[in-house]
């Protein structure tokens, strides 16, 4: 099962490292990262595979949100289907 992680907030050192470390800890494979900085704001879109994850999608979503709170960023986990169903016929 694939999911999207979106990260948004003020740029600083180690954002990707923190998110990836967290995901690796849950045995989640990162498939793709695209990232940009707009006016000092960090904007990242990450596609991950959670098939082999050691916890449920719900726990991943909660864990990432918590991590976001710790490092001062908004991190959102969403299963990929919501984007596909909304934007594709």
């Amino acid at each position, binding site marked *: 099962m694939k999911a999207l992680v979106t990260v948004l907030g003020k740029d600083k050192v180690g954002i990707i490292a923190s998110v990836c470390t967290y995901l690796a800890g849950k045995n989640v494979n990162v498939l793709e990262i695209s990232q940009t900085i707009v006016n000092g704001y960090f904007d990242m*879109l990450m596609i991950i595979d959670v098939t082999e994850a050691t916890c449920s999608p719900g726990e991943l979503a909660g864990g990432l949100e918590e991590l976001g709170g710790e490092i001062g960023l908004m991190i959102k986990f969403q299963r990929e289907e919501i*984007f596909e*169903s*909304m934007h594709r016929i």
Partner: protein
Amino acid sequence: MISRSEARWTNEMILEENLDVRTITMGINILDCADPDEKKFCTKLYDRITKTAENLVRVGDDIAVEFGIPIVNKRISVTPVAIAAACCETDSYVEIARTLDRAAEEVGVNFIGGFSALVQKGTAASDQKLINSIPEALAVTERVCSSVNLGSSRSGINMDAVKEMGGVIKETAFLTKDKDSLGCAKFVVFCNAVEDNPFMAGAFHGVGERDCAINVGVSGPGVVKRALEEVRGADFETLCETVKKTAFRITRVGQLVAREASERLGVPFGIIDLSLAPTPAIGDSVAEILQEMGLERAGAPGTTAAIAILNDNVKKGGVMASSYVGGLSGAFIPVSEDHGMIEAVEAGALTLDKLEAMTCVCSVGLDMIALPGETPAETISGIIADEMAIGMINNKTTAVRVIPVYGKVAGETVTFGGLLGYAPIMPVNRFDCSAFVGRGGRIPAPIHSFKN
């Protein structure tokens, strides 16, 4: 592959424009709980509801987290109690309402609908018992919602029942006077009620439905408003196209949630109700959409045309997105639950008469309108009769949910709290209609009902 802009777009719709799944409503057939012994009936009812819906709230919450879309309410609707309880040897159905309330509390849903009767062609003994029980049932329970279908395009309007409803609403208002007559907010009357409507207070599980079904109501007036901002000043074709495309996207989200919920609960998927149901939050208002279309306020000349456009294109977009669009799908125009509507009433732009005109072209009817407490029962029945006639003649669903707030007069404000919002009390036409309403009997079905 999902693009960054699409991902952002989706999340903006959710975070900033209040896109949400308003409700997952589980419809439960309770016909086989029937028992002449009221106690046994209640026990079976409680067991059936608590067992069938035990995972509803948890599954709803899980889906919300996994997909990152808020699912605001989890609710239950049951077969109209007047039908299921018909063989009960009892004079009052209040105990049944209490049982529904307890079952709803046990599974954690905020409303349970189906304390209902269908009397469009005539009132059976059981229907009468239910109607007599409504005021007390709504006063002593917290989560029970009630509805009565008074008319249909096929069978006309049961004017005896319409006459009675004025009294039922007044009594409900009196019995819940400590809470600004809140009981009336949990009661709605219909013409052409639909059997798969997931929205309260009118939700019930129709007799033509299967044992259990998942119906989902999607919302998102803010998303439509935002989309229209992008095409400000454009012609009507562009306007309609924009509403349609947006409605399509919103419905697809509902479809996804419905499919997921139905799979996880092992319950067949019923319908998606694509309604633009506002909330009192800023940016979540149908009136704001009307303003974005070019009206100074909801209620200004042009409002009926604007709501017609909105309603029709919401349906067109929704039908393309899901094969099972049902319920009331369209734009809701409740007063108390929409801050733009509240402001329009306060500014004198929106009157009861204009609201009635709007209901001719829109999904529902006179919804969440606070009236002066001393409005006569006959006047309320007259308002209901008008609204039922609109539904009957135009082959559409119409409804009335008005709240004559006990002890308050026009111009005062009443606060219901939460999603029910607050409302200025609207003045009512003071001329008498009691001789008309008092005739009784049934208004025959219109000529175009004769199709076979």
